[in-house]
């Protein structure tokens, strides 16, 4: 297991009587693509933020490589172990395509962009000049620029048309299978869940 939720429970401070997650136990392996499914409010995004080290569980712990991430600096966990891809791409608007990718890590952006199918002519353009699908590819390229072994994606196809969404799904699968990364995707999409190696319904916890 590269990433593991162990007896994880969580509630928001403002709603102490309502547990968002209760005693969740699950392990994620490298080289596989996981899909987290479930209705709104089922705790998908919460679990993702706990796995990313953006927050800490009320009870239980998140282990990375068998060690609790809370024992380390969470910023370091985010920087070295986790890559994040968001539904709204979250690219920085005053940087070019290549510069946005550079933000992700030390790897040279060009080969990654090439692999993501972003043509050379786009590399020096402002990201806002790209289409939604291209922007999401740049966001994934930025995630790949780091050496992180885990890629967490929150509704990565939520803002894309069907054809582009499939492209992105294929890309994520490739990253899991070819690069040996653990890809965890939060989604509402049944198609995406079906194409994942493992689909996890949040109500099963």
């Amino acid at each position, binding site marked *: 297991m590269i990433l593991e939720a162990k007896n994880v429970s969580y509630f928001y401070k403002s709603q102490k009587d309502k547990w968002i997650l209760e005693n969740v136990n699950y392990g994620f392996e490298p080289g596989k693509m996981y899909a987290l499914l479930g209705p709104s409010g089922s705790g998908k*995004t919460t679990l*993702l*933020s706990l796995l*990313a080290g*953006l*927050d800490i569980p009320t009870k239980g712990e998140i282990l990375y490589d068998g060690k609790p991430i809370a024992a380390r600096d*969470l*910023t*370091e*966990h*985010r*920087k*070295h172990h*986790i890559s*994040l891809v*968001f539904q*709204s791409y*979250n*690219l*920085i*608007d*005053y*940087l070019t395509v290549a*510069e946005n990718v*550079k*933000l*992700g890590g030390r790897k040279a952006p060009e080969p990654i962009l090439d692999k993501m199918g972003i043509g050379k002519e786009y590399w020096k353009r*402002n990201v806002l000049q790209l289409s939604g699908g291209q922007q999401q590819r740049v966001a994934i390229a*930025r995630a790949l620029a*780091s050496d992180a072994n885990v890629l967490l994606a*929150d509704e990565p196809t939520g803002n894309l048309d069907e054809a582009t969404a499939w492209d992105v799904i294929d890309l994520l699968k490739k990253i899991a299978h070819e690069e040996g990364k653990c890809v965890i995707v939060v989604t509402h999409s049944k198609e995406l869940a079906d194409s994942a190696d493992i689909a996890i319904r949040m109500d099963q916890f």
Partner: protein
Amino acid sequence: MNCLQRAWRSVMRKPIKSILLLLVMITVCLFLLCGMACRNADVQTQDTARQAIGAGLRLDANEKNRSKRLTECSEKIGEGQEGSYGGVHQKKLKTAYGAQWMVWCDNSFDCLQISDIEKLADVPGISDYNISTCMTAVNPVGFDRIEDPDLDQTSDMGGVVLIGNRKMELDSNVLSGNVTLKEGRMVTEKDRDVCVISEQLADQDHLAVGDQIGFNDYHDPEGSQVRKAAVIGIYQTKQMMSPLMAGDTFRSENIIFTDLRFPEKAEGSENDPCYEHAYFQVGDVDGYDAVKAAVSAVDIDWERYDLIDRNGNMSTMSSNFSDLEKISALLILITFAAGFIILFLIFVFWTKNRNYEIGILLSLGYKKRNVLGQLFAEAFITAFLAFAISFPLAPAASKAAADHLVSAQVEQEELEKNMDADKVAYSTVQSEQTVVGVEAGITKEMFLICGAGMVMLTAVSIGTAGIGILKKNPKDILSELV
């Protein structure tokens, strides 16, 4: 990509945001420089004004001491006795109303002691000195005085007035700027039997420089000796000189400036001068207080004299420009306070608007201090650009600000003077000093202080605004993104 690289790109690629911040910073920068330049201009103007006006000490007879001496002399002559002592004369007159005592003093009693004047003139720091005689009424010979045809002249002595000067350019009327030469020259210490007449007298009697006019004792216009004086100059006044007493003898146009010893000759009391004032010019006005102390320390009978500061105009000018100094200091303080508030609000708004970007960077594993460092770097890049742009603009802006402040001060002073016009009486003619220009130079020190001030202002503003980022939990920022 480090925070400096990101900061540079953010500044360059978000021009509207950068230009707005840049304009605010340029304004703050210019206001700071203007404030400092005005403070400096203030000092320069003040010093220039002091040098232009000049300063000195006037020696007058002490009135209390005069009364005391008069009583002592009368006692020496003896009560009910006729006689003279120390320049005081007592005489019993028989009148229609019975016997009456007349007491009068001659020039020797009222005259300032020349030995004392010369002692004071030798004090280091006294660059020059003047002696002025009292206004001496004499009879004009060979020319007519100026008279008011509607005035009853029966009680007037029918004369003109002479003021003798060792050096006319140091006469109080000349120093105040009221009397200026229209033609010819002023009386100097080497002149003998010369005079400077008013332009009205010259016009009426068709007198010109080089002409000779005569005077004698008005008590005996027919029998007394006529003393001639050559006209060496014609003066004009900005406003009439205050008459010593009523009557056309003392009217401004009939005042004639002569060499020091001429009035005593004209009134028939040669070798019995009446020196009324002595004026000691201080060479370096900045050393005024030290010179005054040295003069006061000279061993003379100080009970006889009053030593009067003749720097009243200088004080007025100084106090006016001290107001300017206060305004300038206030301008700097207000700029700092307003600059801080404006920049703080801009940066608070700025960081709030950049939550999205801050969230992305935090999610990518960038530390808070790295994010804050980028904001600092952006602010400092803008501050540096603002400072660089202010460099060439500052001298012109400072000059305009200083000119405006000084003219506002002068206007204010003029307004106050006009308001007081019918309420305040001046015993002497007030000088009219006009500010012709203001120097508001920007020095290297000012740039350094302004630079340091801007760095401090920017650092404090963004530091205070950035506390919000440091306090925030990454999840609070990122919850909007995840």
